[in-house]
């Protein structure tokens, strides 16, 4: 596959040739920041449109189809609307925390987003413990949710935030364990290392049944982690109207909305990276011609395509299943997913230790 670090190095060298190092870095930081923000927004707009079309298809209706061809500008119109809406503050809210909360959620999801590998060398943050970093920063989002619930001075938001807190902390365990299963299989915690290890086959296929179990657990726990149906207890619009962000309006609400959709994509992206080979094309050992043809498809397309498939699966069960109750949700995690994950990790370790994997 094409190594994108050639391009980034070329830009770096070009800037270094006539600028001091600090200026070069500054420009690069700004460039990367703008690129991430732009990508973040475009993806969110796309996902909102995509979800509405998917929901439409599931519900025997059309979905947005008026603004632009096939309604593709619908989310842009929605975005404009949300931008010009008034920010409403309730009485007796904690203004500082109220304003701060959306940014916690947003920043957490952006940091996680920056870890996703889009191709060889096309990745913003690439630590040796990249997976660990990803888990750590994605966990920050819960602070924003709790703050929002607390600072809004509303009983609905407090209940929503408490539910979200209990839910996210619980499901982080399962996510961590299912990721750990893959780390055990690949022997690396670096995102690049994990993707490279899938050159001759995706972990979903290489890791026997434990990888499959880990994948399913990841899908369930991931959906719960990003507060989407059937695990959208924190919002539960039929119970708590909108849960922790009930009192937010305008772009503040927009931030939550944005983060929710991007988290959906991030969930898909991480699943892709860990289980479906990341940006790696589909390689089947022995089929050289096939592999070469597959290599012609750019890595970005592979990554986006796989992520969107995972996102679609998530949407599929969001629009099919009813919502769990909070105690059922916690029971599912602590009584089923967590023990299964632990056993699964043990089995995977045995498989790796004995070299039974492909």
């Amino acid at each position, binding site marked *: 596959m094409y190594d994108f670090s050639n391009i980034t190095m070329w830009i770096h060298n070009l800037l270094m040739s006539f600028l001091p190092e600090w200026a070069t870095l500054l420009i690069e930081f700004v460039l990367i920041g703008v690129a991430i923000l732009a990508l973040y927004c475009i993806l969110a707009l796309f996902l909102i449109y995509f979800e509405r079309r998917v929901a439409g298809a599931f*519900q025997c209706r059309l979905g947005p189809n008026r603004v632009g061809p096939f309604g593709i500008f619908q989310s842009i119109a929605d975005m404009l609307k949300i931008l010009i809406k008034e920010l409403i503050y309730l009485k007796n809210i904690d203004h500082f925390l109220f304003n701060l909360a959306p940014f916690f959620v947003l920043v957490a999801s952006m940091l996680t987003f920056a870890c996703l590998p889009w191709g060889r060398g096309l990745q913003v943050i690439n630590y040796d413990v990249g997976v660990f970093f990803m888990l750590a920063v994605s966990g920050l989002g819960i602070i924003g949710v709790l703050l929002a619930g607390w600072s809004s001075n509303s009983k609905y938001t407090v209940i929503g935030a408490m539910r979200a807190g209990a839910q996210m902390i619980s499901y982080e365990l399962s996510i961590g364990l299912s990721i750990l299963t893959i780390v055990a299989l690949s022997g690396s915690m670096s995102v690049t290392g994990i993707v490279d290890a899938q050159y001759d086959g995706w972990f979903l296929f290489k890791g026997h049944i434990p990888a499959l179990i880990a994948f399913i657990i990841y899908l369930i726990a991931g959906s719960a982690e990003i507060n989407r149906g059937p695990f959208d207890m924190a919002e539960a619009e039929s119970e708590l109207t909108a849960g922790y962000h009930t009192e937010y309006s305008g772009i503040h609400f927009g931030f939550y909305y944005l983060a929710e959709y991007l988290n959906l994509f991030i969930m898909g992206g991480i699943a892709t990276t860990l289980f479906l080979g990341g940006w790696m094309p589909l390689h089947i050992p022995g089929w050289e011609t096939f592999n070469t043809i597959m290599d012609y498809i750019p890595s970005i397309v592979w990554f986006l395509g796989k992520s969107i498939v995972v996102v679609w699966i998530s949407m599929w069960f969001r*629009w*099919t299943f*009813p*919502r769990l109750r909070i105690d*059922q949700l916690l029971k599912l995690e602590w009584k089923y997913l967590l023990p299964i994950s632990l056993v699964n990790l043990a089995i995977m370790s045995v498989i790796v230790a004995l070299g039974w994997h492909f």
Partner: protein
Amino acid sequence: MASIQEKISALIPEANFTEAQVLEISVPDAQWHKLAKALYEDANAPFDYLTTIVGMDWGETLGCVYYLESTKTGDRLSVRVETADRQNPTLHSVADIWESANFYEREVYDFFGIIFINHPDMRRLFLRRDWVGHPLRKDYDASPEVNPVRLHHEEAYDTTVSYVEQADGKIVKTEPVIFAPDDYVINIGPQHPSTHGVLRLRCSLDGEFIKKIDPYCGYIHRGIEKMSESLTYPQTLHFTDRLDYLSAMQNRHALCMCIEDAMQVEVPTRAQYIRTINDELMRISSHLLFWGTFCNDLGSTTALIYGFREREMVLDILEETTGARMSFHYNKIGGVMQDIHPDYQRKIKEFCKIMPERLKEYHRFFTGNVIAQGRMHGISVISKERCIAHSMTGPSGRASGWACDVRKRIPYALYDKVEFDEVLRTEGDIYARYMVRMDEILQSIRIIEQLVDNIPEGPVSEKMKPIIKLPEGHWFRQVEASRGAFGVYIESRGDKYPYRLKFNSPGMMLVASLDEVCRGGKIADLIAGGGSLDYVIPDIDR
């Protein structure tokens, strides 16, 4: 019935008896509680089902008419209790005998100002606390200066009023506490996605658990009963479609039937067929909407659209014939407004073929889902006895095993000529209430299929005089609306206006029972439980 009469006159010699639609007993207030207890505890025919309490202003006296029924034998009777004191009218409460009297008596207090002694919670039910006067009294001052539009919100009070009779006969005013100061009270509604209208519930919580629910009604109170008193009978018909808009056909059927009863008009058979079919179509559409909204309450948003998809077919059929999709205005006194559309029968038969298949799809999609099962089984359980005590009729009552279907108990229209089963379950939980409605759709289709091919030729309505006057007297008729027994009470003084028109809505009792049904559950169970009771707010508030 004669034996009951003997028993009562042995117990209370002052009681007067009249034979009308049912046996009517008139007792003084002092004896009423004793009689009520005796009737409730009667060995042969315990009158355990309080059908309704009609508050009345007879001019000279104020009082109530109680309609009672024995669920064991099906015997019905009514009791008339009155008080001559128009300044401070008091009657004795029977809320300790029949749970449902709690809300009914609050309604009477609200509209007539009759204070019920020993009632635990003597607040107004529909109107604001600062409302001046009691609107259904004949001496009510309706001028806008007395009750201007209030520009401030009504404060929520945590205590209520109760008038307790001491052992020595003295009446003491007490202030029972509804919510203690350290209760965590959340306000659900009146603007809330899952209260199915403008119902307001104040709930005290213990974490996620519901400790107590206190329903507030009246946010969509339109004074329909008051307005009816100044409108002619054909005009009053129009309100029925706006009570429970999902039982528009049945409600109107009830009022038409009550008026026809009073005038002793025979409705043509063709009209009877059409009325019965329309009632059942309405029931199907209501249950389909129930399915959609209930699933939506449980977080399955897709189901809402599926339910609406099939409901649309029913509405299309009704629209062709009646010209409307919501407030049909189709039944009229003596028959129906106009003849059926030529496509009516064909389309109904098509629908009857499709619907059972779609029900299977619903079950595959939602009922069998493991999450849905977990949310429905064994939650918000209510027993048959408590159902009867709360007068919870309709599918909610039948889910607890109470055979309360008016179509079977007091057959009207063509229900005694068609074959159908009364769907009964015994669990009394959300799942039972859900499944009863699902199975009732099939039974409704069964009824329609028996009728649709046999609609006889003939006129669709009896010719009525331009001005309809009812003879003096009073009548009470019930039909099985989509969510329970819907009753109409008319008192006439021989005018072209009703002297008193009372709608007895099934929804009010469902909301009244909400506290008992959902207490101890979680917030999510309150939403699911409320959804499974399937109340419609305009029906309650009237």
